[in-house]
């Protein structure tokens, strides 16, 4: 980790990497991210030439398309002080995996490393870099899902919890299996649906056993998986992205819930 990046410029210029899922499924998370970043004193821009970080190709073994998409992202996010994504999985892709895509001698390698050094997952960026002070009020009993990539590739664990501590009335009840995978795994859940269902059921049972009516997390893919299964099974568990709660956007319907 680059420690100098822990002292941000007074008003850092941030490129928001929206992530493909947030862009198309739940843009509100993107707006929550903008609100939080701006409240913490950053200037947020959104390069329009972004689509996805390339993980579907990367995790399917399609190296050529992965590299092409990586170059596109590197290009689009050149020059920002920081690149921030409301997802540990996508931020992990930029930070941990992009550099490995290019040979050491390839000029793109240095550019990938430069991008990696500037890239952050939203919640850890707010806590560790911006040292954001979040104040809010929302009575709820919540449990937390530590999504795998954020946790194990980027060390996102305490940051969301310390940010949520600023929300008065929000009680966090930890499940002993908070760090266990939810079975999403990108294309895994559609290629091996039966196994994925078995895994997410265990997650749901453990979450429900905490007595919390709300599950929070920082990765929309996992949250869609958990919410989708909860709804099918009729488990009364609301699922939301942590950024929405921190930004006070709790009047939104929970993930997978209707407005009707």
């Amino acid at each position, binding site marked *: 980790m680059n420690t100098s990046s822990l002292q941000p410029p007074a008003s850092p210029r941030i490129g928001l990497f*929206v992530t*493909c899922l*947030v*862009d*198309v*499924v*739940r*843009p509100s998370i993107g707006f929550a991210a903008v609100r939080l970043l701006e409240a913490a004193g950053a200037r947020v*821009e*959104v*390069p*329009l*030439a*972004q*689509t*996805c970080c390339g993980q*579907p*190709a*990367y*995790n*399917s*073994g*399609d*190296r050529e*398309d992965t590299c*092409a998409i990586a170059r*596109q992202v590197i290009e689009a996010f050149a020059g920002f002080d920081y690149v921030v994504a409301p997802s540990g999985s996508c931020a992990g892709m930029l930070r941990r995996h992009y550099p490995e895509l290019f040979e050491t001698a390839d000029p793109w390698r240095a550019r990938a490393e430069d991008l990696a050094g500037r890239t952050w997952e939203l919640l850890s960026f707010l806590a560790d870099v911006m040292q954001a002070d979040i104040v809010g009020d929302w009575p709820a009993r919540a449990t937390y899902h530590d999504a*795998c990539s954020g946790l*194990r*590739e980027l060390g996102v664990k305490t940051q969301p919890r310390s940010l949520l501590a600023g929300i008065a009335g929000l009680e966090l009840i930890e499940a002993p299996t908070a*760090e*266990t995978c939810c079975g999403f*795994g*990108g*294309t*895994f*859940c*559609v*290629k*091996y*649906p*039966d*196994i994925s*269902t*078995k*895994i*997410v059921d*265990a997650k749901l049972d453990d979450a429900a056993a905490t007595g919390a009516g709300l599950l929070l997390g920082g990765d929309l893919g996992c949250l*869609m*998986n958990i*919410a*989708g*299964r909860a*709804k099918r099974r009729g488990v009364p568990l609301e699922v939301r992205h942590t950024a929405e709660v921190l930004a006070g956007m709790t009047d939104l319907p929970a*993930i*997978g*819930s*209707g*407005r*009707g």
Partner: protein
Amino acid sequence: MQSTTRLFDDNSRKALADAPLQQALGKLSSNFTVKRALAAARLPEFEALRDQARDIKDHVLAHLDIYLERFEANVVAQGGVVHWCRDADEARATVLAICHEAGARTATKSKSMITEEIALNDHLEANGIEPIETDLGEYIIQLRHEHPSHLIAPAIHLNKNQVEATFRAAHTDLPPGRNLEEPRSLLEEARAKLRRRFLDADVGITGANMLIAETGSIVTVTNEGNADLTMTLPRVHIAIASIEKIVPTLEDATTLLRVLARSATGQENSVYTTFATGSRRTDDADGPSAFHVVLLDGGRSSLIGGAFQDMLRCIRCGACLNHCPVYGAIGGHAYGWVYSGPIGSVLTPGLIGIAEAAKLPGASTLCGRCEAVCPVRIPLPRLLRQWREKEFEQGLQSKTARFGLGLWAFLARRPQLYRAVVGVVMRILGRLARRHGSFYNLPFAAGWTADRELPAPEGRTFIDQWRARAGGHR
């Protein structure tokens, strides 16, 4: 061993519907993961030891020829013989020849995955030699004509009632009315049955957790002591191991032992750790008069120096299985060959070919917990991804998957076109599901909607809204 990895989908569906198996898998966490975490936390230098363990194995793999030759010289100096076997056929033939030469009719065996790999038991039986498994779990599955479903807990897929039924069916000489309620009584019964077999066996066959180059010793690690009886009571001891099990020195062996049991079961040490060196000397109280080491390559040397070399660091502790959500859902047999879990999914394609094992590398969420606990820090998710790259290059994925991915990648590489397409699609989907908030069924997302709702898009994409609001950059 014959593989059924091509049937992975069917195998795993059966496993998911197998109630005793599911019950057994439910205990993985309390039996293994919790204990490993406690053991790791109790030892301040545990993370540093993992680094050392990794470095020892990397060093060995870079100089494998030197250490193997040194090992052989020291085995010979201690009165033993080393047999170099390129593949399963050679290894089977070698073991059989030694058994024949010893005039053996029975051979006791302590747990060895390599003998599973080369299907040794079938071969011995076919040639008139009765193999007798002496590890309790292995003994049970031998009676049931099954294969191990876990690296260190071979019968973990069975519950107590199944074991009881197996014993009643096999031990017909015992009174049918005997009480086998307690696990203890099952253990006693197996012990009593095995005692005679230990004493009668002509040959004892063990695996080896490590081979030590500087002394020519083999190391076995068990909780039951059965390896010790297997190697000391018969006249002939055959230790069978794959070539990457070598370590340079006793000191290195102890470093690996310090991470092995802690990672495997959370014990500081296994109950029995045995260093066996050579055949019986004149002043030894016991021991075999002949000591053979069968060294199996079995495709390993072709992995050295390549992109998959890291997997040869594996010390077969089983931690990656215990922490894997996929293994935890389906158990070991579904993987269809000797090795299961994350290490199975990288090792199997390496040893029997990616075309045969094409279903395995994809069967992972890449959650990374395996790498986080592996005592020798094998980057299992990276290796799984590398196998996926091989599959992609060789066109081994399904047509639908390739088509879907191709279409998606085509769009993802063209931001303007992508925007236009997803913009329209999301507006439609968003309107369709506005009230319900999710889809119960979507034809092109059947894999998703079979068991769960698909949370619906809000409607306009983030980028569309952002552009409308601020005219792009603001």
